[in-house]
């Protein structure tokens, strides 16, 4: 099931692009255009998480946060350009769960959203990913194929996860490396090759060969 995220942001471009980004990451996004009826919109949409800007027309984010908090316990992420510590403190005092400053790194934003959703709703997290008979158990960090299991290291898990999430598409090496950097694994080109080779070896061990294919000069594909 897709998690519902409400987006409260008054800058039109950022609002639209965030909507695109979140939709692309399998979230159901609700957007507010009329800032006079924020509470009604929230009630109608019933979000599981709110992304809230501080500088808004009519009412600022702090007041909206306070209002939401009187009714719901849903996670609220403050997203703002004013990164003074006073704002951060106030957002925490009013019950905000996270405070992200512009210009935010989208990887960090997505990671925060995922972490908060997982904490608030422990049951609906991703447990396993399936692809061509291969099942990746995200929590356990293992890969299953025809009843056989193999354990993966942190790097390998992330690589497989990324490839399976983009199954059927060519994943350029640069994108893969960037994704790993976003997950705080600072590997370079050579290390990536080593990791891929090791994964292939492990897969061959459970009778799976040619799962990850190399597209010459383009990248990898599963």
């Amino acid at each position, binding site marked *: 099931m897709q998690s519902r995220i409400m987006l409260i942001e008054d800058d039109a471009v950022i609002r639209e692009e965030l909507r695109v980004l979140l939709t692309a990451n399998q979230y159901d996004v609700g957007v507010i255009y009329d800032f006079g009826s924020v509470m009604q919109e929230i009630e109608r949409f019933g979000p599981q998480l709110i992304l809230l800007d501080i500088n808004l027309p009519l009412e600022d984010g702090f007041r909206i946060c306070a209002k939401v908090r009187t009714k719901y316990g849903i996670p609220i992420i403050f997203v703002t350009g004013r990164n003074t*510590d006073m704002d951060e403190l106030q957002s925490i005092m009013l019950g905000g769960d996270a405070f992200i400053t512009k210009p935010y790194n989208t990887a960090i934003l997505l990671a925060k959203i995922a972490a908060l959703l997982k904490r608030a709703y422990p049951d609906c997290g991703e447990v396993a990913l399936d692809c061509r008979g291969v099942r990746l158990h995200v929590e356990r960090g293992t890969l299953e194929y025809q009843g056989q299991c193999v354990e993966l290291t942190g790097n390998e898990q992330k690589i497989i996860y990324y490839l399976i999430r983009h199954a059927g598409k060519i994943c350029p090496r*640069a994108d893969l490396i960037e994704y790993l950097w976003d997950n705080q694994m600072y590997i370079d080109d050579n290390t990536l090759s080593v990791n891929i080779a090791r994964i292939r070896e492990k897969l061959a061990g459970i009778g799976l060969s040619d799962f990850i294919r190399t597209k010459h000069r383009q990248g990898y594909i599963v």
Partner: protein
Amino acid sequence: MRLAEYLKDNIPAMILQVLCMVLLSLFLLSAGNTADTVGFVLLIWFAVAAAYMAWCYYRRCGFLKRLLDLTEELEEKYLIAELMEKPLRADDRVFYGILKLADKSMLERVAAAERENREYREQIEQWVHETKTPITAIRLLCENNPTAIQKPLLLELERLNHYVEQALYLSGSEHTEKDYRIRELTLVEAVHQAIAQNKQLLLQNQVQLCVEPCDITAYTDEKWLVFILSQLLNNAVKYKNDTPVIEFRITQEDERVLLAVADNGIGIPPEDMPRIFEKGFTGRNGRTGGRATGMGLYLCMKLCERLGVGLEACSDGGGRTVFTLIFYRNPFVGVR
């Protein structure tokens, strides 16, 4: 005030006294008094006049000394007119009045200048915060629309953001007391954040990073620390060699925690070393590279001083440069 100076000021009065003495003597002698009588009268006169002058001198000296001592003790010397007792002598009161007026007009000027300065700084801060919105919009547009120029564009955005941040810290570098929050922080988290902020810079320069997982904490402000680390990363890349490696090392000693940022770049010439934290200093590397502003390390030092964090640099001149942040563990923190 020395005695000689006081006497000099009183020369007219003394001449008058002497003149009167002479006239009185002439009068007394012509009236048939003996020289002895005249001499005796003059002696008495002289004694009384001298005693009076000594008393005046003593009082005056006391008054001036109190005033000088008071001024000495004052931190803001210009406030003396507010604190001194109102003088009794008429001419002193005139000077006192003038002093008060001068004081008032100066205080007004200082207040106006301070207000202007503060307003300007607030405007700059406001402006910086406003620019964050379009930068965010461009970033999102960039990331959502993969094109050939996406990555170079993101790198330029990182640079733009770094300079904008610099402006923010520069504008507030005198008055940032209100804008930091010291709390316990896992240092490696700040390192990860600084790397994330400069991801494109590091990736496109093919920098190899070494960050060991580590849970050592220190008490500091997260945002400032990330900015300092980001600045050090920028410098390391700016002065890199062909196969750049940047290493972060976090270690704990008894009373302090060290966060070292080591690179294998071109190094800092020994003759430049003592001055690298000076405002506007660019050094030999900066002159040959041509992109140094001389502000980066100055800002780092400034922020470190405010946070109570030590910042040391060492370089063997031909390769390895290490910047070390030193967090002092307050022995009172954590005591229950």
